[in-house]
Structure formats: structure tokens, C-alpha cells
């Protein structure tokens, strides 16, 4: 439903005429994020600063219009989709790194700063920002904080919430507040802690203070092949059980390795049932000792063709294969549906065999590329949207995989969020009382429900999902 002309005028006054988009053709660009569903917003507003964000939210609050924050639109759970219409609040004009403090080892950034840009900027001080989602070349720190994003190196370093020191936020009434900050303790409740990962349903994030880490003086990266995905899973558990927590421990199955090797020529062994990418860092003594220990555990668990990167270039190539794996899958099928779930690490063999069986049942190829050390799997269901009636099959297969994750004692999402995609599944893991506790938190922050409505909580009244594919746009779009 288009917004009232008077409301649009108020929004234009808040951010400037040229920063409000309301023509139906232009709005269509903002229909989707990187997930499977879409919905066209009624208006897109691009604020330049905190004061403008506050003004926009005040207008929205006055008229009870939904507000959906949007960064780079790389989210995988539909967090930025305006499922109830309303305003898409696009923060990409707010993209300044306001401060890097090399002494305190912190950075203060606006929400639209791209994840990798921050690490590049910090590199001149020999510092880095640890959370590294595979989309780090595009995704924003604001989006990372909203979703509590992870990445390969979160195994050792922790996810976004472990690195956010404080935030400036705008609440549903337009008020601006700082939550937490540089001090290690705060007085009162940890609002910052619950706002990180709240998927835009409790506040808008306008500034983020993050911790930067000293770059380790030495890094060792190893690629190892395994005859089967089960053997590789067993090896992952064995590494951790040996008391070693590597900086990263990533797995790719044969489908993935084939696509990656064809694309990157990184020397991945295409005959292997699965490969592991293991990285340790620290001072030279510890990387030597830890890598020797990792190699020995992998060898005892059927690891072969082990190859350690001999140069930074070689290391980057190995990582390019991992981080670009999903794009490379386009060689197999043009479209994919990337799922996210976490199981206890020891359940990896079971979940991967269940995922394989589900793929076979639905006659859909599945490629696995994931954070094995955390038990965080990412099955990619590959398909071609031009095939008739394929989407319901893809969705059913994904739902069955998640069900299997939950049945093994796992979680619905490790790093992509619940959003729109998984809200209906929340009762699989949480009781009505559990969900009621979360609902009370939502209501305490956003009594009128204007912040990103229709996300996280199951919606009994929700109509049949509107799949973006049906608009015909997604066929050209790169799904990832």
C-alpha cells in the first residue's frame, strides 16, 4: 500500500527529497535480500546520519508504519525484506569509519561500513576485525551487528557479539541512546548484548564501537583430503578433543570441491570425499607446534594429501576457494538455497548423511561448505529456477534438513538469523513460554511493533509465502 502523500513529504523533509525513493520501478530493486522471499517496500529512505534516522523513525512511529533496516542486502534469512510493507531504511550512506584507536584497539564505525573495509583500514596499525562472514567484501558492520554474524575465524575468535563493545541506537520512539561502551562492565542490564542479533526488531543501529585484535605474527594454513565426509567429520571432533582450538576449521564436500577447483584452480583434491581447511595462528613457535599436532590428528583420522600454504599468496588462494565456494556452485546449477543450522560437533556425521539422503529423495544436488569446528553446517540446495515447480521441492528439502538438525539437538541458525525464513520453525526449539519471554522483550522495546515486523516470531496469520522467483526477477539475479 503506497504511503500517504503527507507521510512521504514528512520523510522528504527528514532526509532530503532526493533520498526518498517511492517510484514503483525503483522500489522493486529493494524487494529482496539474499534470501528466497521478497516483498516490495512502500518507500526507501536513505538517511545520512543518526539525527535523520531518528527523524525517520519518529515519522514512522507517529503513523505506525513498519521500519526495516537495510545494509548491503546480503542477509540470508529475509531480515531486510519488508514483508509488511512500510519503509526500508537503507543505511549505506552512513559508511564512515569514524575512528580507529590503535592504543585502545577499538574502532568506531557507522553501520554502512563494509566488513572488509574495516579490516583493511585497521591493517595499517597491524590490527584486524575478527568476525569475517564469507560475504565480507559486501556485507556491512551494521548488518553484522543486527544479525550477530559469524564467519570461519569465529571458531577461535568468537562471533560479532563478542566484539561489539557498545552501540549508538535509535529506539522505536525515535530516541537516541548509547548502550555499553569501552568499559568492561556497565551498570544495569546489558541492553547492548540483547540488541546485537535482534535482527532489526528492537532498534536501529547508528554507530558501532568494536574491538580490534592484534594481527598474529604467524599463520599456518593446511588443506587436507579425506576419503569420506564422515571421516572428515570424525577428524574435526578429534582435533578439538585433542585440546586444539584452531583459528578456523572448515569443511567442503566433494560437490563443492569440484566446483571450486574448476573455478579457482587452488589445488583442491577433486577425488576426495571431503576436504578440511585448518588454520592456526599465534607466535611462530605456537603455529609450528599446533600445526604439527593438527597434522598428526588428521593423519590418524584418514587425512591425506595434506598441503600447507607456503606463502601468503597460496594461503589467500586456499581461502578464496573457501569464501568463493558458493559462487562457484553456479557451475552446477544457476540457483541455490543456502541453509544454516548448528548441531553438536559430534553429530556432524549423522546430520551430513541425513542431508545427503534428503537431497537424494528430492532429486536435488546438495553441496556442503561449512564451519565444521563449530558444528555450523551450510547445505546448499542447488536447482534451476526455470524448471517447473522446483521451488516448493527446494523449500521442503530445506525444511526437512532443519528438522533433522533440531532432532539432533541443534539450533535453527548459527549465523544467518531467523528472520522471515525460519520464524515458522521457532516452535520446534522453543516452548510457548520460551517464546513468550522473547515476546516480552520485544514489547518492552517496541510496544507498537513498528520495528521489522513479521520476523523471528511465528506468525499464525501469515499467508502463503510470496516467493520472489514468481516475479521473474530472480532468474536473472545471482542467488547466493
Amino acid at each position: 500500500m503506497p504511503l500517504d502523500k503527507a507521510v512521504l513529504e514528512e520523510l522528504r523533509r527528514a532526509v532530503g527529497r532526493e533520498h526518498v525513493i517511492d517510484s514503483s520501478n525503483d522500489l522493486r530493486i529493494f524487494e529482496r535480500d539474499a534470501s528466497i522471499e521478497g516483498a516490495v517496500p512502500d518507500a526507501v529512505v536513505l538517511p545520512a546520519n543518526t539525527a535523520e534516522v531518528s527523524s525517520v523513525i519518529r515519522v514512522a512511529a507517529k503513523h505506525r508504519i513498519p521500519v526495516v533496516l537495510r545494509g548491503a542486502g546480503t542477509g540470508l534469512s529475509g531480515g531486510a525484506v519488508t514483508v509488511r510493507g512500510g519503509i526500508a531504511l537503507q543505511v549505506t550512506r552512513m559508511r564512515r569509519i569514524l575512528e580507529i584507536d590503535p592504543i585502545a584497539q577499538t574502532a568506531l564505525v557507522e553501520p554502512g561500513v563494509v566488513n572488509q573495509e574495516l579490516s583493511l583500514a585497521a591493517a595499517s596499525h597491524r590490527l584486524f576485525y575478527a568476525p569475517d562472514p564469507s560475504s565480507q567484501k559486501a556485507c556491512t558492520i551494521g548488518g553484522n551487528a543486527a544479525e550477530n554474524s559469524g564467519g570461519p575465524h569465529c571458531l577461535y575468535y568468537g562471533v560479532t557479539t563478542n566484539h561489539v563493545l557498545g552501540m549508538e541506537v535509535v529506539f522505536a520512539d525515535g530516541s537516541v541512546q548509547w548502550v555499553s561502551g569501552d568499559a568492561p562492565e556497565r551498570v544495569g542490564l546489558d541492553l547492548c548484548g540483547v540488541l546485537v542479533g535482534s535482527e532489526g526488531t528492537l532498534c536501529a543501529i547508528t554507530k558501532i564501537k568494536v574491538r580490534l585484535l592484534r594481527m598474529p605474527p604467524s599463520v599456518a594454513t593446511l588443506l587436507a583430503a579425506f576419503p569420506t565426509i564422515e571421516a572428515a567429520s570424525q577428524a574435526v571432533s578429534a582435533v578439538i578433543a585433542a585440546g586444539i582450538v584452531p583459528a578456523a576449521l572448515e569443511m567442503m564436500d566433494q560437490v563443492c570441491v569440484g566446483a571450486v577447483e574448476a573455478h579457482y584452480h587452488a589445488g583442491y583434491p577433486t577425488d576426495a570425499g571431503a576436504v578440511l581447511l585448518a588454520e592456526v595462528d599465534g607466535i611462530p613457535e605456537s603455529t609450528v607446534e599446533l600445526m604439527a599436532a593438527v597434522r598428526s590428528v588428521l593423519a590418524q583420522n584418514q587425512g591425506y594429501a595434506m598441503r600447507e600454504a607456503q606463502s601468503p599468496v597460496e594461503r589467500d588462494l586456499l581461502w578464496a576457494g573457501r569464501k568463493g565456494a558458493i559462487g562457484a556452485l553456479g557451475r552446477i546449477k544457476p540457483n541455490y538455497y543456502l541453509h544454516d543450522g548448528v548441531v553438536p560437533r559430534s553429530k556432524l556425521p549423522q546430520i551430513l548423511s541425513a542431508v545427503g539422503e534428503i537431497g537424494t529423495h528430492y532429486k536435488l544436488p546438495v553441496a556442503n561448505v561449512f564451519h565444521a569446528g563449530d558444528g555450523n553446517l551450510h547445505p546448499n540446495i542447488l536447482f534451476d529456477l526455470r524448471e517447473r515447480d522446483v521451488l516448493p521441492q527446494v523449500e521442503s528439502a530445506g525444511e526437512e534438513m532443519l528438522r533433522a538438525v533440531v532432532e539432533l539437538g541443534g539450533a535453527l541458525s548459527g549465523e544467518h538469523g531467523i528472520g522471515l525464513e525460519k520464524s515458522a520453525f521457532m516452535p520446534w526449539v522453543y516452548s510457548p513460554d520460551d517464546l513468550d519471554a522473547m515476546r516480552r522483550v520485544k514489547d518492552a522495546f517496541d510496544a507498537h511493533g513498528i520495528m521489522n515486523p513479521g520476523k523471528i516470531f511465528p506468525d499464525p496469520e501469515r499467508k502463503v509465502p510470496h516467493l520472489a522467483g514468481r516475479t521473474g526477477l530472480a532468474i536473472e539475479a545471482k542467488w547466493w
Partner: protein
Amino acid sequence: MVSRATAEKPATAEELARRLHEAAEAGLAVFPVGGGRAAEMGDPPARDCIELRTTALDRVLEHSQADMVVSVEAGITLEALQAELAKSGQFLPLDPFNSPGHTIGGLLAAGWTGPLRLRYGSPRDFLIGIRVALPDGRLATAGGRVVKNVSGYDLMKLHYGALGTLGVIVAASFKVFPKPLQDVTVESAHESMVDAWVAAERALAMPMPPAAVELFSNGRVLARFLGSPDATKRMVADLGWKAVDAAAWDLHSKAAPARWARIAMPRHQLRSIVDNLGAGEQWWASPGTGIANWDVAGGADDVRAVRTAAGAAGGSVVLLAGPSEFRHDAGAWGTPPATLHLMRRLRSAFDPNHVINPGRFVV
């Protein structure tokens, strides 16, 4: 004086929730107690409370060694949990002061940490699931038993350090850690505090950072290196301090001043606040995290003065222990944050009649 004549010691989480609900229905208040090690934290309760003891809830619910995840009931002591984890070479990196005897629920509610926070962070970073009893008698769970989870709101963060005001913690799940391959402790002693601070900073700047660095008001500095054998050996050699027995940490964990204030500062502001405490004051500090523990020799005026200076530099001073008169005079928390109205709304959503710890917390 607050009388706590009645004490309840429920045997199950369900029974605890029922007792809590009965108290709420009867218009009574409860004071949850685990090991009682942080019983003096906060302002004295505003009205009579029934003691609600969690110590009968002392089981390890599940320890999955391969997954390095443990779930426990809230009343288990930290020592009992560590003993269970040690059987498989694992541990929870939590070493609070006023030990031994803390329960897990008490530690989470009070938010107390120790020297190892430098390397491992606080339970905020490794608490992965929580179950709480609410005054309406319900039990609510958040998080789960996996190490990475963004399913729904992170209510673990809200309950951690909330002194039970959003619900009484009955169970918790943690990500645990492998015992380090090598664990070495070294110390250095200094006549001048200037030298002692320099020494602490030098330890912190080592290429393999120490897991803990503690600085004492008598000029002593303790540092702990965890890691692979050659790496720790090199750090110890490069630093050149005297090796001491790891028992130094056990002794340190017993510290518990009778009038105890926790100073928490942005890391590089800590020294200026601690330097101004006065020459005769006893304290110990963790210069890498920005936290100091102060054994307050003076009265409420001294606390208020330090609190003003700390607040101006972006930090806080919170009382962890003391006679109720002292806590009443100084105030346990200081100036509440600007977001107090939101915190109040959250509290009202879970405990509208302030049944749990009335008047004790900042909210």
C-alpha cells in the same frame, strides 16, 4: 535490618518456579541464594525476603565431552563443575574472587569474573543457554546447547549480571575449553608503583599475550601464559620474571575485602583512577581488562569521590560487598544509566511487582 526468617530449598526447577510464584501471589519477596558468596552485592533489600536457595539444584545435566558443552543446574558449585570437566581435560575459564563456594547461578546473576577474563572473556562470551524461573511460575529457556546460535533473542546477555531481577536462573549451558597444553605463572616485584605498571604493560604487550596479568597495590605483578610448550617457554624467557607455582592463583582467588568496590574503566583510564585512590589503599587490578578491586579503607564519601572521577572517564564503581549501612550510604551502583527507563520496562515485563531482590539492583 532485613529479616530472612523463612528459607526455601526447592529440589527441582519446577518446584523453585512454584515457590517463586506462590511468593509472588502472596505479595512476598524473595532473595535467591546460591553459595551466598555475593550476598552483599547491591543495595540492601527494600523489604523482607524469603530466602530461595538453589543449592539442591546441583546436578550436571549433561557434559558432552566431544562437543565441549556442559549443561548444569544453577546450584552446582564452580568447584564441583570444574572437577567434572577435569575428568576429560576440560575447564570453564572462570576464576572469581571470594572463592571457593560460588554456585554457577550465583556467578551468572552477580556477573563476577577473575583474572582469566583477560584471555577468555566473561561468561557473557561462553554462556550458550539459560533457563530461568519467572514470578508467574513459568520456566523460560533461551539459547541452546550448541556453540553458535542466533535463534531468537540472546536472553543470556540480559540475565547475566541482572542479579536475578528478570528471573531466577535454574540452569545454564556453557561452551567449555580444553586445558591448555602448558600453564606457566611468573611474577615480578617492584618498589615503585610506576615500575609495577610498566612491568604489567610489558607483559601485556608480549607477542603471545598472557592469559592473565594481575597488579597488586604492593607492587607485585603476576602473569600467566597458556599455550603450546615452546611458545610459553619463549614468552617466559623473553619476559625474564621469576617462575612461581600456579597455587598463587588459588590464593589470589580467595581475596574478598570486607568493604569491596569494583572499579571498571576503559582499559587506559584504569591507572589514573587507581593512582588516585591514595597511598595507603589496598587494591588489585587487571590492567589488561580495565578492572580493579578496591578494599575500601574509608567511608561512603571516598567511594562517591572515586565514583565521580570514574564516571567522568567513562567507567563505574560498584560495591560487591560491605556492611548494609556502608552500602546504603555509598549506594551500591552510583548514577543509573540514561537507558534506565528501558531497563525498568524490561523488569516490569518479567517481574512487575519486584518480587525478586526488591531494591537490590539498579533497576
